[in-house]
């Protein structure tokens, strides 16, 4: 049997190390801490899922890795943030530009707005390849056509001359994926790549990302608010809430034995095929805290947690090992039983 990326982990060095990441925004009506002490490693070829409701700091975390957070108003701090041995915090703008689109690339949520409406697909694909791989002329076009073919777009030569508005959302997201993989990056960051798409094609896109990154040996990060989306396509999952990681575990383990009440809630909100007809989908009551207006005391999830106790409000739990490779940030991790 092939060693899984999990088993590789012990020998391999992480390609991305983030330790103690804190991202603040100073806005006109106050300050906001969007990411609060987030640490994780990403190993070569691994696929990491990042799950949490909207506003939990998922995008900000990975935009910080790319240093694409506008500063000001943002400010990125970390104990350590390294990509393949290189310090991302101290990297010059020039060094960052050499990493972006080349070593680490990104696919965004809305393929409708993520492509420039006045430039052809070809023009937008070519510029990255030209910049990082130095291709030009015929070989540049060949590379674009090959990439479009790889992401399953028919008549790629013709598509190069198309403008984004002439393509459907699914095709545009395929173009975005082709663009992101065009320079053989070590890491692909996919931020809610299917959220804006039709349900019927979400699965195709997720599988496309999984298959292509596997073939190319690219590590991938799949950001989503839907735990169901990362079930079949990731090796590990980290669950975020209010700017923190609340649970982190290998995918099968997280689905089998979720320990954080938030994870359990997310799990129960996944629509299931075998669900009895007419039964309404479960959703966690309440909403994540407004980071700009509310100060968080103790466990950020306490107001919505069915298991909350006095201790939870008084003091915030920290992310602790619960089992090997399974980290949970909950006072009651040991006795939080899956209910429902």
């Amino acid at each position, binding site marked *: 049997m092939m060693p899984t990326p999990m088993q590789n982990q012990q020998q391999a060095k992480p390609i991305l190390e983030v330790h103690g990441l804190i991202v603040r925004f100073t806005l006109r009506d106050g300050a906001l801490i969007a990411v609060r002490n987030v640490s994780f490693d990403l190993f070569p070829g691994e696929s990491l899922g990042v799950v949490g409701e909207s506003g939990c700091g998922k995008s900000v975390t990975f935009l910080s890795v790319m240093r*694409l957070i506008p500063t000001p108003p943002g400010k990125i701090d970390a104990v350590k943030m390294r990509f393949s041995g290189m310090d991302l915090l101290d990297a010059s703008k020039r060094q960052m530009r050499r990493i972006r*689109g080349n070593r680490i690339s990104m696919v965004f949520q809305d393929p409708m707005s993520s*492509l*420039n*409406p*006045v430039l052809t697909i070809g023009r937008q694909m070519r510029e*990255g390849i030209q910049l*990082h791989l130095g291709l030009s002329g015929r070989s540049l076009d060949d590379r674009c056509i090959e990439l479009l073919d790889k992401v399953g777009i028919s008549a790629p030569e013709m598509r190069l001359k198309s*403008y984004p*508005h002439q393509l459907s959302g699914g095709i545009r997201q395929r173009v975005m994926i082709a663009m992101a993989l065009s320079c053989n990056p070590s890491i692909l960051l996919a931020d809610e790549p299917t959220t804006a798409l039709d349900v019927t094609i979400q699965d195709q896109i997720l599988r496309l990302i999984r298959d292509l990154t596997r073939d190319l040996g690219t590590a991938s990060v799949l950001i989503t608010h839907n735990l169901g989306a990362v079930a079949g396509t990731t090796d590990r999952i980290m669950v975020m809430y209010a700017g923190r990681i609340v649970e982190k575990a290998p995918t099968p383990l997280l689905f089998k034995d979720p320990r954080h009440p938030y994870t359990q809630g997310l799990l129960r909100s996944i629509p299931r095929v075998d669900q009895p007809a007419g039964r309404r989908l479960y959703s966690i009551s309440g909403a994540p805290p407004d980071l700009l207006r509310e100060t968080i005391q103790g466990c950020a999830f306490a107001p919505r947690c069915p298991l909350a106790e006095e201790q939870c409000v008084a003091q915030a739990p920290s992310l602790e090992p619960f089992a090997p490779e399974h980290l949970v940030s909950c006072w009651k991790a040991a006795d939080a039983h899956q209910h429902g």
Partner: protein
Amino acid sequence: MKRYITRRLLLLLPTLLLVSFLVFCIVRIIPGDAVTLMVAEMGFADDEAELRAVLGLDQSLPRQYWNYMRNALRGDLGTSLWSGQPVLEEITRRLPLTFRLALMALFWTLLTGIPLGVLSALKQDTWLDYLLRSVSVGGLSIPSFWLATLLVVFGAIWFRWVPPIDFIPFGEDPLASLGQLVVPSLVLSVALSASIMRMTRTMMLEVMREDYIRTARAKGLSEWVVVIRHALANSLIPVLSIMGIQMAFLVGGTVIMESIFVLPGMGKYLLDAITWRDYPVIQGINLFICTLIICINLVIDLLYGVLDPRIRY
């Protein structure tokens, strides 16, 4: 595309008809006509009726309008009541100067308005942005005739610079001739440039927040390429529509500049014609200007299609 252009050109006809009718009426509302002026100037009192008959001003107004329209459709705009020269010829003789003046003003406008607007947006909320914004508010609120008069008066007092009385024809000395247009065209471009600058700034700020700008940055493109290749074209689409509106303003401005700086162009000709109640000339120039503005706007609308592939005609 061809159909679109044809349709737009066909629409030109009713517009011109309306404009010609309005101008025809308005010039006749101004008290006094060419004949009373001629009589007052030259004092041949007994020939007044005869003079009217010769000039065709004795006919009924509908009749005059009918003749005017019939000839205009054949490309004949009539002859000047004073000089007896064909109006069309007089206009085309003066047109190049007005054209050069307008184009030069447009050149300054784009040369300053767009780059300064971009700069202001990129340096949002810095002292440079505040400075540029104050300058543009100033530029918008200073009337061009006032600025022009100021330049003429204080130019003479402080710099011993006087607008030359004798205009150098382009054919005689092109550079010197163009040189005479520099100050008037600069004055003309102040307000235009200020509004282009404001619009460019606003649109740049909006476009720089778009998702595709983030995508461009995520590719590792330099900020320069992001701004020029990805942001500018998208920002210029609305700027273009402002320019369409400005065209009428620009033409009106040339009339004022030509009269203040004594430039023998179409604008000066128009003002003189109004003074002397030279109806055919006033009517002819108005038709001409109106056609010109409509055509420029058509070109601008077609330019949209070049800048924005989503637009199809």
